[in-house]
């Protein structure tokens, strides 16, 4: 008699490979349908643009391949989409557009921010933002950089080549818990990235670090103008709910 391990191995192998002729288990096709429909329903909901773009037949083949070859680690249903993104990114899927992993990441980004959990320090809300503010990005905010113009991809426009300049986004959840997108340039992205990893510098100090590296490329921009710019950008994304104070307010 096979061991428990052998039984599970054979059952799951047969389950993952519907095309193999495997008569060993009764009603195996019921399990195959259940597993497929469950994952298909979830991912179709998470990736409607990809589903439309690929069409039903190619999509089904892709889901079958995901079930067959991807070892999903997460026990959490909201994270299956991320498993799918990893699956797309880690494999070369012949005849599928090269931008697919990035498009998948972009499609899921809104959900990712919508459900992201706040931590305690996210509650440190700045009253106002100026050169002396010690601020960073909230844990619910996300910075994204794509080598394809993923926001332009649709059923009618899927003939994209790699673009010369990457596309940058900041996503955050505003005070009404709605997800907000800001498309930005490389310089602004760098500012947000520095703020994200900021552990204790003032906005003036962060802006100065960045100014030193960008000044050679933008000789006409003065340090003062750039600081003013950094303050305005920070205020703008603070209104989108992206910013928190690094230090909690001291209660005296």
């Amino acid at each position, binding site marked *: 008699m096979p061991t428990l391990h052998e039984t599970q191995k054979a059952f799951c192998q047969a389950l993952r490979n519907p095309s193999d002729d495997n008569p060993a288990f009764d009603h195996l096709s019921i399990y195959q349908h259940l597993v497929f429909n469950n994952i298909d329903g979830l991912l179709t909901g998470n990736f409607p643009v990809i589903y439309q773009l690929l069409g039903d037949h190619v999509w089904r083949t892709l889901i079958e391949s995901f079930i067959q070859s991807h070892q999903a680690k997460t*026990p959490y249903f909201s994270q299956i989409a991320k498993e799918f993104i990893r699956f797309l990114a880690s494999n070369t899927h012949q005849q599928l557009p090269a931008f697919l992993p990035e498009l998948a990441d972009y499609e899921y980004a809104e959900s990712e921010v919508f459900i992201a959990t706040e931590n305690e320090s996210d509650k440190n809300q700045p009253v106002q933002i100026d050169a002396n503010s010690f601020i960073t990005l909230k844990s619910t905010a996300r910075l994204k950089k794509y080598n394809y113009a993923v926001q332009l991809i649709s059923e009618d426009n899927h003939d994209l080549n790699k673009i010369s300049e990457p596309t940058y986004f900041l996503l955050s959840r505003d005070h009404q818990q709605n997800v907000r997108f800001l498309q930005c340039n490389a310089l602004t992205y760098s500012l947000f990235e520095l703020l994200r990893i900021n552990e204790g510098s003032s906005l003036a100090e962060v802006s100065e670090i960045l100014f030193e590296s960008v000044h050679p490329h933008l000789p006409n921009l003065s340090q003062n103008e750039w600081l003013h710019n950094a303050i305005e950008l920070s205020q703008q994304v603070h209104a989108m709910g992206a910013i928190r104070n690094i230090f909690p307010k001291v209660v005296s």
Partner: protein
Amino acid sequence: MQIKPEGAGLGLRRELLDDCVSFSVAPDFFEVAPENWIGIGGQWGDSLKQIVSRTPLVCHGLSLSIGSTDPLDTQLISDIKCFLDEFNAAFYSEHLSYCSHQGHLYDLLPLPFTDEAIKHVSQRIREVQDRLERRIAIENVSYYSVPEQDMTEADFIKAVLAESQCDLLLDVNNVYVNSQNHQYDPLAFIEAMTQESIPYLHVAGHFRKDNGFIIDTHGANVIDPVWSLLTYTYQCIGNKPTLLERDFNIPEASQLMQEVEHIKSLQSQCSRIKNNNKN
């Protein structure tokens, strides 16, 4: 403080959140799968907190894969423990099945009814109980295939309960589905479980295929034979908190509440009969 559920409960789905917040859907208790809610903040997380602050919660796991020969996911267990504590959940249950073998498949797969499976799953249930620092319940699942069978389903379940010292979450719809699909007497199955520790029950709708085979979809109203089996269960083991599972084709709030109310009317009928018998 944990509040023990009573009466009739409902599985809490995202689609129902607004109706639950506004009290259009107001059962005696709710059940969630921790795997659908751990790590969920924002509007959904806020709604869950609001709902649970005024209605008792029980938890019914999906991804622990208690019967798998893969290693136990100890991170998941500790996340579940935090979740149970945060929401004061009175019960935690899992399915007597497995859902992963070298990667998750996110569905309930059938265990073979063998001594080896009893020993393996019981040892893992004990480990989970130790880690969670509480007694858990396991649910009898619907199964469509029997990979190996040295004993009946009822004997298999009873042996696991005895060896692991855990409770039974008796799913009355699953008893009906399995009894139809595998041709056994559902009443005898219920009778075989009467000595077990059963803190609460599940009831749900299912889908019957053209060939008569039943799939446990939780996507339809509960059918009369399952209501009758629930009544019979109450007669055998007394009134138990009972939860309606509805995961697909979710109807209007009022229609859903009718089914929840029906559970309560069966419970009160059963109490009346018991009281009359006493007099």
